């Protein structure tokens, strides 16, 4: 019975999320554009799939992954785990003590990003628009690596207690420098990928990790230090995607330059 109640709750919550969007689309379509949508039935079926898919997805996450992931975040950050059996807990423990926390942060960042539905959507669109130059998997892996690094660094920041602004500002300086040198075509996509990484799957798990750490590391306050991991997860994918594009550009250039050096005709290899 309570199971059924939960289901109903999730469905109602999804309807509430989707309703304003449907209202605006419908309102503008009928009142402003005054044109019938092409393939209306197909589109409505698609909308229904999206709605049902979101509801199942969220319910599944609530039931399976979130409780376990959150529990794990608490277990890994618990002092009993960090200082196995040692009675004397240092007032200011060395940051190297938290080895498993960094591993967990990076791996959970990577794996939740791979499953993030909005990133899948953007990657599908990018592959279509770029005619295959940007591949769905290339983009997703680049973004996921960025998130993994970002969240691991974010946990290090919480543990060492250094100010958030310094990291974020340094990161954006790197972004500005990369923007000047990266292929122009990738820049908007890279900027977008910063925003799409953190939604349904990543945010709850990462927030649990941040708050768990900030409440157990001596001298940190969950209120002041618990936030900020999402900011890391939105910043580093930008760097990773531009870096990926720069790397592929550099490899293409080197491949083009090589045959010339050997005095061969360009284009004979491969």
């Amino acid at each position, binding site marked *: 019975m309570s199971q059924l109640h939960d289901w109903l709750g999730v469905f109602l919550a999804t309807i509430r*999320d989707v*309703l*304003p*969007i449907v209202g*605006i*689309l419908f309102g503008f*379509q009928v009142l402003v554009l005054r044109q019938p949508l*092409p393939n209306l039935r197909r*589109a409505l079926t*698609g*909308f*229904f*799939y*999206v709605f*049902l*898919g*979101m509801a*199942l*997805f969220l*319910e*599944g*996450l609530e*039931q399976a*992954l979130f*409780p*376990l992931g959150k529990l*794990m975040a608490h277990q*890994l950050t618990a002092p009993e785990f960090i200082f196995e059996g040692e009675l004397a807990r240092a007032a200011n423990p060395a940051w190297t003590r938290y080895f*498993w926390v960094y591993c*967990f942060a990076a*791996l959970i960042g*990577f*794996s939740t990003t*791979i*499953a993030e*539905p*909005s990133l899948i*959507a*953007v990657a*599908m*669109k990018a592959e279509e*628009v770029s005619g295959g130059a940007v591949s769905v998997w290339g983009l997703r892996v680049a973004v996921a690596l960025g998130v993994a690094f970002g969240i691991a660094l974010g946990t290090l920041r919480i543990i060492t207690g250094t100010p958030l602004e310094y990291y974020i*500002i340094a990161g954006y300086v790197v972004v500005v420098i990369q*923007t000047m040198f990266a292929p122009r*075509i990738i820049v*908007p996509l890279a*900027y*977008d990928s*910063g*925003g799409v990484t*953190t*939604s*349904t799957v990543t*945010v709850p798990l990462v927030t649990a990790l941040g708050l768990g750490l900030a409440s157990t590391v001596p001298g940190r306050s969950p*209120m*002041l230090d618990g*936030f900020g991991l*999402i*900011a890391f*997860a939105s910043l580093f994918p930008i760097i990773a995607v531009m870096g990926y594009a720069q790397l592929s550009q550099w490899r293409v250039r080197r491949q083009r330059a090589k045959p010339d050096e050997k005095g061969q005709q360009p284009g004979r290899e491969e």
Partner: protein
Amino acid sequence: MPKQLSSFWNVLKESLRDLAPILLVIAFFQFVVVKAPIPDLGSLIVGTLLVVMGLTLFVRGLELGLFPIGEAMAYAFARKGSLFWLLLFAFALGFATTIAEPALIAVADEAAQVAAEGKLIADGEAARAGYALGLRVTVAVSVGFAILIGVLRIVKGWPLHYLIIAGYLGVLVMTPFAPREIIGIAYDSGGVTTSTITVPLVTALGVGLAMSIKGRNPMVDGFGLIAFASLTPIIFVMAYGMII
């Protein structure tokens, strides 16, 4: 319809592959690091099946519904040629999809807690609720504004990076003057605003607009709307923290 079914099966296989990394990570940490059995194996399996089904349906729905709707509306607005209605639509889409976002509601409530503890506002039920609501409206307005500016940029063909870099310079300048308690929340709010249904719609809208306006490249001009939606909330939330 065997074709329909086989494409469904393909998407299902992809969803399984998308979720495999999470399961591997959780299994590894549970058995190797924490060294504990999985507490509730039954509900873990059921939940995972639900997630796989949900992701499969979602991806099919994107192709059938959200992408075509976003693009069709972009073409229709381009044909209509009225910038006013297009911009109004952009603002409304950004505002309405953000104000009800559950992640934002959660962050706003936590922010009110932080503000009360930091003595920025009076500690009381009413003061906290008012602060949280104000924050939500602020973020929703900022996302509406972001989509509006982003669409205007596509129409005018302004280069994205100047606008974004200027925006982050604004963040840089504002950070030292904002109350310390609000900085983390402001930086985070940039990431939580873009929901799973907004992103495909907005992306299809941007790409559709860039394709239907002469002289725009869908790759260079079509993307970038999400980037604005992650930037403006940081600025608006810090401003909110400074004013309140």
